[in-house]
């Protein structure tokens, strides 16, 4: 008996003859992908329609909530200003996202490797997280001034805790068997971390990053309320103060779009990084 008789026939796909079975699978796959693109658009479209319907049917006054049409007009009319203000907010949110999540990942790493430190410092982090912004803001401005730094820090603080909690759990929940394997190979803690724990934590991490994508934008916007003249947060403040509800909603649409974009980036990153899962895990 030769070894090759054990081998399974595997065709690399670009050489596959185009047969009926393949076409069927490819068609199903294409359908799935289109659904994934069209349905969200449908959802957003439905939301707009609902908004419009509520405004019209209940005759909601424009100072409570403007019609989507007025918001779209404002978005178009003020596109230049809105985009100019989006840029600093996007930078702050992105900076906070990176910083906050990085810090959370690093601290989760430390916690997982040193249970004593975790037991001691987790409550400290918890308490610190519970301090509202009003108390942290003066200290931040005192230390960092009025540039982008305090806004980035606030966005980072807002992302930090959820990622920390999820990451600690992800890093801890490794398969005991895989852990034994690493131990037998005398893998260093570093190797166990990079080749086992981190990969194992990815589903938890990406879950956290999805949350953080949304939170970091909110963090940046709120951060701008600590003293800023540009940015979506400043615009929101301005618009609220002036009762300019179309502008307020336009600014909110901008920040929500930014959140959505971040979320999309995280989703795409996840799809690119986690390649080893069954294609349709949940059916």
């Amino acid at each position, binding site marked *: 008996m030769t070894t090759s008789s054990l081998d399974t026939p595997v065709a690399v796909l670009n050489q596959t003859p185009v047969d009926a079975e393949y076409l069927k699978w490819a068609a199903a796959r294409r359908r799935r992908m289109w659904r994934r693109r069209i349905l969200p658009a449908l959802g957003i479209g439905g939301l707009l329609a609902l908004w419009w319907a509520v405004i019209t049917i209940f005759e909601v*006054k424009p*100072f*409570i909530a403007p019609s989507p049409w007025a918001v779209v007009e404002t978005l178009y009319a003020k596109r230049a*200003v809105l985009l*100019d*203000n989006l840029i600093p907010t996007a930078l702050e949110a992105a900076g906070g996202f990176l910083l906050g999540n990085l810090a959370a990942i690093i601290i989760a790493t430390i916690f997982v490797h040193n249970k004593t430190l975790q037991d001691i410092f987790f409550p400290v982090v918890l308490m610190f997280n519970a301090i509202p*912004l*009003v108390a942290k*803001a*003066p200290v931040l*401005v*005192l230390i960092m*001034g*009025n540039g982008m730094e305090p806004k980035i820090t606030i966005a980072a603080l807002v992302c930090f805790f959820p990622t920390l909690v999820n990451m600690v759990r992800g890093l801890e929940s490794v398969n005991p068997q895989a852990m034994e394997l690493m131990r037998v190979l005398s893998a260093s803690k570093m190797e166990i971390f990079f080749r086992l724990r981190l990969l194992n934590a990815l589903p938890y991490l990406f879950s956290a990053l999805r949350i953080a994508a949304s939170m970091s934008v909110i963090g940046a916007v*709120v951060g*701008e*309320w*600590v*003293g*800023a*003249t*540009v940015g979506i947060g*400043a*615009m929101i*403040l*301005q618009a*609220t*103060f*002036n*009762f*300019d509800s179309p502008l307020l909603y336009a600014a909110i649409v901008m920040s929500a779009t930014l959140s959505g974009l971040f979320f999309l980036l995280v989703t795409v990153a996840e799809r690119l990084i986690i390649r080893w899962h069954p294609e349709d895990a949940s059916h």
Partner: protein
Amino acid sequence: QGKAKINMQLGWIPGVNQIGEVVAKRLGFYEQEGIEFAIQPGGPNIDGVAIVASGRYEVGQVSSSPSVMLAVSQGLPIKCFAVGAQKHPFTFFSLAKNPVKKPQDLVGKKVGIPSTAAILLRALLAKNKIAEKDVTVVTVGSDMAPLLTGQVDVVTGWLTSTTALKALGPGRVDLTLWDAGVQLYALPYYATHATLEKQPKVIEAFLRATSRGWHHVKANRDEAADLLIKEYPNLKREDERAAIDVMLEYALGGMAQTQGWGTMDPAVWQSQITTYSELGQFTAKTPKLEDVISLDALKATAAARTKVA
């Protein structure tokens, strides 16, 4: 070289309330006084007093005079050295179909007010001998919508917020806090004891330049609006242009007509302190007048500030 720095920390975002400073900065008035000037914005989460008190920035401005009294009462080492508005534009707004024209009209009304401004209503009621139970207080955000939706009969706000007031329509009825007998200042400038004592010349220079700025605004309103938009492109020119006219009434009206921009009356301050003290607002200690304000800088610059006028 030895140019003095002045960072002015606001308690709110900058706008037409700071147009005098913006114009002075843009036209180089500060530079001519040997000052490097910048405005540091505040916001809902930061009033800036602690930041100035700790020496991070040189001067500050808050929205209303009680903040200064309360801060001094808690031992923060600051003093007010000038005011930006000669009367406080805080106003009770109602609609023509259910008007509140004088304090007595408040009886039986539902008044929507932010929790931090509730004390102003209490002061007003006390001054006019109206029992607190005769008025229903509804805590709201800084939002005028409840008046329009009929949830309350009266809302509060600043008469200088011209854009916001457009929402209430032309049939609006105003009752200002000032006219109702509670006389507060708005937009007070403050600095630390240390700054006031060690660098009086800088503060004086700042006052001179700022005063010049405000007078320039009065004389060149359209240009001022343009400069403001240049400094803060997010603002809407026509809104700000309309607001300038109202704001100038407050900045350069009243005592400022005779004693120059920024001037303030110690008697008004003393009555504020008394009112707040009577209402039990000083949880720490009741501050003395001389702890709250310092008239030195105003006095030293009186000539310069009135000359332009």
